């Protein structure tokens, strides 16, 4: 008798090559010094990069428009009336909003004891000055280890668990999602994810992560 192995969300995403990951992942570098990051070289090597000299839109960052945020610590969010070391406030805000958001601490202030929290909270760090090889190394490692369906599904599950959903309900949701994704039914999958928890603030967070999951499943 044939046995059928139940498919999980993490089984349905096709593994992507590093070149494909570089192309797909949207990265924003937020730094008031445009010379600090080797943008041209990385763009030429297929990375999808944007440079903001300050936080141009907190909404876009909250919405998860970028898969990786490379964030400086000082003078990047002047428009948001945060304190001078505003990069840390932005990092704390984004991580609180969406713990799966990948953020790289990018600063020359590694010698400053008072900034340790910035480095500790980030997913990885690039200490200025930095060359193109190191930037590629750090971003590639994050793409391989974090820009994965496993990472986002773990974050998604954590939100569901924190909202009080039982394991049984989470398993049932996963089963329905696998079916919807299998049918290439993006709308149903997204509705299932957004409505998993009725609370409005949670719905938004689930939607942000849900879109990443669907993108990695190839039905964005």
């Amino acid at each position: 008798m044939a046995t059928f192995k139940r498919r999980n969300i993490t089984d349905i995403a096709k593994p992507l090559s590093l070149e494909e990951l570089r192309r797909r992942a949207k990265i924003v570098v937020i730094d008031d010094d445009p010379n600090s990051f080797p943008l041209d070289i990385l763009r030429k090597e297929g990375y999808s990069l944007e440079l903001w000299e300050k936080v141009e839109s907190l909404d876009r960052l909250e919405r998860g428009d970028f898969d990786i945020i490379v964030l400086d610590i000082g003078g990047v969010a002047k428009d948001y009336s945060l304190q001078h070391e505003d990069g840390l406030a932005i990092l704390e805000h984004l991580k609180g909003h969406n713990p799966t958001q990948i953020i790289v601490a990018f600063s020359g202030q590694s010698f400053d004891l008072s900034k340790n929290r910035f480095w500790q909270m980030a997913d990885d760090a690039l200490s200025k000055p930095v060359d193109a090889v190191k930037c590629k190394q750090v971003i590639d490692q994050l793409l391989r280890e974090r820009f994965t369906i496993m990472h986002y599904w773990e974050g998604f599950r954590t939100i569901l668990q924190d909202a009080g959903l039982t394991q049984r309900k989470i398993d049932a949701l996963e089963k329905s999602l696998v079916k919807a994704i299998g049918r290439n039914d993006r709308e149903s999958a997204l509705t299932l994810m957004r409505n998993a928890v009725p609370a409005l603030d949670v719905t938004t967070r689930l939607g942000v992560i849900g879109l990443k999951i669907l993108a990695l499943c190839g039905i964005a």
Partner: protein
Amino acid sequence: MNVQIAQRLCPFPHLNEHGGLENGLHYEHPRQCRKCRGTGCGKYLQEIVPLGQVRHYVCDSGLSVFVASRPSVHMVINGVLDAEKNKVCSGPVRKSLRQQKVCQPEVEKWLASLAEISEVMERHMETRVREVIGTLHDVKTAVNLVYRNAEALVQKYPGSTFDERVEGTEPELKSLLKSVGLLTTRFITSSIVANPESVRHGKKRPCPVYKVFHKMVRLFQEVANRKHVHIQMSGASFKTPQVYDSFEALALVLVDNAIKYSESGQQVTVTVDDQGDGVYVSVESHGHTIAQDEQERVFEKGYRTSEAIRSVRDGSGLGLHIARLIADAHQTKVWYKARNVGTDGMGTNIFSVKIPG
């Protein structure tokens, strides 16, 4: 505030940290103390007193001793007389000490003023540090520019990736990139001194240990040549243990030190070998070996052996301290061993480290 500053600001006679007699700004040691040379009150250097407090004791000669304590400062004030508290002191001695009368509230007042001075000094230091940090930040910004310009030059060479293009560049451009790389690693060492926690910044990533040490050996080739020191690599390693970005600074310190303290005309050998549970690195050089009692102390911040001070004037005593901090972050240790030591103290210095993974 450290204990040396407190000692220099102390109005009362006291013991230094080695038990020696030091006169105060206003009072000197009496005859009794000069005779006894502090042997009777040296034990109070070990006396534990709660921070911010002063305790009164009487020494074997019947004189008052105050032990005062505040963060980083433990003071033994001796050779005085607290007429109120010290009832043991006999009549003739009491008479001879009439110039040495100090009561406990006076010592407490001095201790409180130390706290105020310390606060002012810390604020002053903080301002200065911020100024230096601001300057360092500007230097880093300038180095960024050098990187971007050098990378723009590399882009003119053929190749499908940046790494491929670097391989095809002129030796001069390669040297420039390496030199800026060395400068960047120097920034890491400065950061570690100012902020030891920075050794753990970022995520650990796989590291080709042999390649890192080989890069350092090549970067220091010119320095070694100038000193007529022959530097070479040996061993074979294919493991890539997970390390922090600060690890490169450990390679820098060990190779830099080996050349710096090597005798002219001698050889430095860097060996990197895979072992069962990690990668073993040793850096061997020939020169003055470190005396047994100093072998642990060389890893202390700012400590330099007298021989090191004599042979290399501009050292800071920070290199091995940095190496130890990096090793600690990787749950390992830097070991020192001296071999073939002659009667003149010359021999082989071996610094080794095993990186787990």
